């Protein structure tokens, strides 16, 4: 399935719609960059220039003084990477069991995963807070990793399971007859073949961790613990914050995700639908 097999010939209408859609959808992104490069003084006194101004670096550095940008982004990265690793590890085990074994309780496991996926994670905010209070995981990045991984687990499992279902069982048969342990079979035979599905699931888990806000905003209180989502929201709420500074942080927060997404986009869409269909 190539991205470049467009079917229909263009008509003037399609071009027009394409231009309008691109302008409407792309404008907020452009405006974020444009504002980030503006001067706060100019924004307050005169209409914002439509073209980015390149020369307010010093003012921007002043405005960002005291905003823990580096720790915010690295906290988000820790949460995102932790979530991805834990989710993929558990989802692969889960998918392997569901795809390759018939056992009592198999339907129950699928049902539990499905219901976890259907329930908004926000409804567990209170009991998880109560639990974390007891475990000392409030105001702790690893607590957030646990929460994110639990809620990313179902869709990741379904994506990887669909990938495994598509691989003929005969390939593992030989390894099994040799009495290779199940985990050996999984890692040596199956894993390399389902790598695309695992990658798709990993990207989704990464995004879930990178942008997560509700649990982070409710649980994390220490400034040095802020992930970018919390830091940015605090910045945006302070009337004293400069708009170029807010937009700069938003850009730094969004850019890695957008670039990453555009690079892998083609590979994750099939996984996304596969996981959803079977979910």
């Amino acid at each position, binding site marked *: 399935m190539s991205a470049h097999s467009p079917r229909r010939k263009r008509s003037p209408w399609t071009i027009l719609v394409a231009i309008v859609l691109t302008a409407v959808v792309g404008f907020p*992104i452009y405006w974020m960059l444009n504002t980030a490069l503006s001067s706060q003084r100019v924004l307050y006194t005169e209409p914002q220039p439509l073209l980015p101004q390149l020369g307010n670096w010093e003012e921007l550095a002043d405005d960002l003084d005291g905003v823990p940008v580096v720790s915010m982004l690295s906290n988000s990265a820790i949460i995102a990477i932790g979530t991805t690793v834990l989710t993929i590890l558990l989802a692969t085990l889960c998918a392997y069991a569901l795809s390759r074994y018939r056992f009592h309780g198999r339907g129950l496991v699928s049902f539990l995963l499905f219901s976890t996926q*259907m329930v908004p994670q926000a409804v567990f905010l209170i009991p998880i807070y109560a639990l974390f209070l007891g475990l000392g995981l409030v105001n702790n990045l690893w607590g957030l990793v*646990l929460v994110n991984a639990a809620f990313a687990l179902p869709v990741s499992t379904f994506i990887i399971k669909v990938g495994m*279902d598509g691989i003929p069982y005969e390939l593992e048969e030989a390894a099994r007859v040799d009495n290779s342990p199940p985990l050996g079979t999984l890692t040596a035979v199956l894993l390399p073949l389902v790598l695309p599905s695992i990658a798709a699931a990993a990207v989704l888990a990464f995004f879930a961790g990178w942008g997560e806000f509700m649990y982070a905003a*409710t649980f994390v209180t220490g400034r040095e613990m802020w992930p970018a989502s919390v830091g940015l929201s605090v910045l945006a709420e302070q009337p004293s914050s400069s*708009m170029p500074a807010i*937009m700069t942080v938003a850009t730094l927060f969004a850019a890695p995700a957008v670039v990453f997404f555009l690079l892998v986009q083609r590979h994750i869409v099939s996984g996304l639908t596969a996981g959803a269909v079977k979910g």
Partner: protein
Amino acid sequence: MTATANPRVSRSPRLRLTRALRGVATPAALLIAPMVLLAFMVFWPLLQQIWISLTDARLTNPGGGSFVGLENFEALMAGTALPQVLANTLAYTLGSTGLALVMGTLAALVVNTRFRGHGFVKGVLASPWAIPPVAAASIWLWMFSESRGIFNRIIEGAGGEPVAWLTSEPWAMVSVILVTAWQFAPLVMLVTLSALKSVPDEVAEASRVDGASAVATFTWVVWPHILPTFRLLGILLVIESLRRWDIIAVMTGGGPVMSTSTIVVAIQRQAFQYQEVGMGAAYAMIGITLAVIFALAYLMVERRAEKRNGR
């Protein structure tokens, strides 16, 4: 889900017993870790939630309230907040889902054609999905700014009255729906695009050669092909917008006067701002009920579709 190869079925009798044992023991071993995580993060919290919703717990000691029976639920039923929260949830969920489906399908139809700059257009149209919701909300917060935002500048430039986008009804709801749909539409576009690729070229071509208009071709040839995908996207987005908190929290905080408070906003505010954890848990139980209703509706629709397709 079709039957996959079954390790327990072995032609060699000597191996059958070990296989049978392994058939139970191995999946159990594989599933221990994932299930422990779910038990801690989902199942135990669910039970705890039911208990908390029956107590008068405060935030300082969420597990330690005293039992009050159904008082929290009675208070919710008696008040005016719950109907409004439910109406808001419905408006937000259906509004975001509907708008995203329309925009995303339109985008998919456009990107499915050949033109110069195709890659750029597709990239731009796909990007909003990857922007972290808080970043997206803060961009739009600035664009919706009453005194200096670009929207009001354009309106004033055209001689209109500035709109209090985020602090007046119904504009606050319209604004958060717009932002949410902006973030959802790329998913619709990408998934619909891959469904459009499954429409046989010759069939669409034949319909055009037969003199059918573009609209007729879409309605009778393309649409039936992408309908299952569309239904699936619909339920995915309903669930996704049901759980959305970030955009509303940053842009309106649920206001003005609760007009953008969805169920999720209500849970968080009741428990962590008013510190009434018991009441918050009661809201959460209603949220769970909503999710169950949506999930059942989805399963029913899928069942019926499967039956119709004779799968």
